[in-house]
């Protein structure tokens, strides 16, 4: 069996795939559109973690469109696909709660950050705090991850970097009580934006999802409309499980938008297409590095271009 692994290692994985190069190859090989062209395009999507279901759906729609328009040459097909992908992404971008991130009339705007372990919640919060700080907003962070070792210290360092305050409690304290204290402090201190950090949790752990619900309930005691926005932090290297994550978090506490992190690697984060398609949860920010300003508002056009690069 060792030989089989060796064989594969030898033959299949010599070069990193270059999608653009591949598309050019496909088009050269089949100047006229045929099933091979569609198969190749589908594979490109799958390799970007778009997922089988959403990929076939996109390709089916593409086929229909191409037939409708009577296009026969492969050359332009990629632009049609890009257009379709962009359409899928943009169809959900106007959700009210998510738009609130950029234009809000509440005070304080309460943003709750959730996600599985290691996706980059705390880092994203540091950057998000900086983002609002630059907009001249008064920002407060809430260290409601009382579970993971040194999580609040980590948040504190980010708060220093961003130049904002943080409310924290003892490790092991009830996260809901930390969130409550934070909102109380935010109201008292005339804060514009309160960002609540929560412990990473696998979406399959029922009791941990209950804990998130409790945090939400407790926040509502002080402000019925809070948290105004709940953002799910999703690691771009995550495969199809990303959809499960989005589903479970949406079902349990409601998710208004996504922060897609680690896009500075080689992963494409294509699973957000399935998430858009099935759940309609839009991406609002992307994380592209470890510096304070490495968080950017999501741009569908840029994302689509990157997907096919």
């Amino acid at each position, binding site marked *: 069996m060792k030989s089989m692994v060796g064989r594969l290692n030898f033959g299949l994985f010599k070069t990193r795939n270059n999608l653009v190069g591949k598309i050019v190859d496909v088009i050269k090989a089949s100047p006229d559109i045929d099933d091979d062209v569609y198969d190749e395009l589908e594979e490109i999507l799958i390799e970007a*973690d778009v997922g089988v279901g959403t990929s076939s759906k996109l390709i089916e729609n593409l086929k229909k469109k191409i037939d409708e328009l009577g296009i026969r040459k492969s050359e332009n097909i990629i632009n049609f696909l890009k257009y379709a992908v962009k359409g899928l992404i943009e169809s959900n971008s106007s959700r009210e709660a998510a738009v609130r991130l950029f234009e809000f009339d509440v005070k304080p705007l309460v943003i709750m950050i959730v996600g599985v372990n290691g996706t980059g919640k705390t880092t994203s919060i540091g950057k998000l705090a900086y983002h609002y700080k630059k907009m001249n907003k008064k920002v407060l962070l809430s260290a409601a991850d009382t579970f993971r070792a040194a999580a609040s*210290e980590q948040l504190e360092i980010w708060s220093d970097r961003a130049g904002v305050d943080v409310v924290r409690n003892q490790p092991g304290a009830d996260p809901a009580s930390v969130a409550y204290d934070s909102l109380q402090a935010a109201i008292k201190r005339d804060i514009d934006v309160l960002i609540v950090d929560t412990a990473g949790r696998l979406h399959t752990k029922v009791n941990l999802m209950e804990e998130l619900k409790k945090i939400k309930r407790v926040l509502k005691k002080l402000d019925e409309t809070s948290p105004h926005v709940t953002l799910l932090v999703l690691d771009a*290297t995550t495969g199809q499980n990303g959809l499960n994550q989005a589903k479970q978090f949406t079902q349990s506490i409601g998710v208004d938008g996504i922060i897609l992190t680690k896009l500075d690697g080689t992963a494409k984060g294509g699973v957000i297409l399935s998430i858009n398609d099935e759940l309609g949860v839009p991406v609002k920010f992307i994380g592209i590095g470890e510096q304070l300003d490495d968080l950017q508002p999501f741009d569908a056009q840029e994302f689509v271009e990157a997907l096919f690069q």
Partner: protein
Amino acid sequence: MFQDLTDKLEVIVRTIRGQGKVTEANISGSLKEVRRVLLEADVNYKVAKHFIESVKERALGREVIKSITPGQQIIKIIYDELAGIMGKVDVPLDLSGSTPHVIMLTGLQGSGKTTLAGKLAAHLKNINRTVMLVAADIQRPAAVRQLQVVGETVGVSVFTDSDSNPVKICQSALNHAKRSGIDTIILDTAGRLHIDEPLMNELLEIKSNTNPREILFVADGMTGQDAVNTAKDFLQWIDFTGIVLTKMDGDARGGAALSIRMVTGKPIKYLSVGEKMDALEKFHPDRMASRILGMGDVLTLVEKAQQTVDQEKAAKLERKLRRQEFTFEDFYDQIQQIKNMGPLDQLMKMIPGLKSSMLKGMSFDDRSFSKIEAIINSMTAEERRRPGIINGSRRKRIAGGSGTTVQDVNQLLKQFQMMQKMMKNMNKGKLKGFLFN
């Protein structure tokens, strides 16, 4: 874990089973479905393609012609291929040669290195090694502090250094270990991108300075298609010795396991399955393959049961059951033993024939036991032995004492009665299986 993949393969295999003969037509249809399953499980599409090719090749070759039952033959071929890709034996950590041994943990950001460092330390400490954790991640804020807390939790010393160069930190940690008779050090390096050349170079320097016995590539079990790129690059830079897959207690299908194993040829040594410090499992490729094919992970379950069930108590209980003397005291003992076997939801997943779809929406949290325990704890010794005497006022008292409601107590009593009835009807053969011995 691989449960969803298992479910789907099971359906496909059943379809093949129902047909008398394996033909090119029916197998390629099924294999197309297998390909889809693999892709949905995040197996890299090239790996999936290759897997399908080799299964097809073997299925249509002489093996099938020889075969009397083509269905079984295909299951065996798929199983063999899967097991083949993931390796044949479980490969333990290499702790041979002169001490101190250096174990180096590497991987992307957020893959779970620091948590794994703690688990490995706990594991090695259990087998009587003197372990020291080394805080070589000075990149991520508070990573050093995190490792210190983890070290405290598992009772292992943590080496920290104010030096801003991880290479130097690891070097002085090794020197310190040599001087103080520590036999294993675990280097917790900063998470980094495989395309970050300066940082990958740094790893290489740490490697050449400390000469690690083991370099483990720590990968998130939920990783998608990109797993092959990351693994390949880390391999090229530092030629790691083994793989650890983390967050495997979620519902990720774990196709990354196949992908990474296939492109690197390195063994998967552990699965990380939870946030507690003992949530570390050895990787058994054969078991994983059976699991994928719907045979359940019976071996792991049996092993766990053997580890935790007190044989003497079990025998005593069996005698009691035969004489129909099962009491709440025995019931309480049983709960304790099951709890010792590990988180309930994970145990459930190992049971063959239990599909993840059946478990959906059900909470198998250990806390579901705590109510029962509380109720039993609030009973008097007499009540535990003779539940028949628990009348209305006793129920009220028990509910009050255990922080539950009378309805809860009633429910438990009812369940207990049913259990006693069930045991009466059970024949002795079945009883043995029920008790895991």
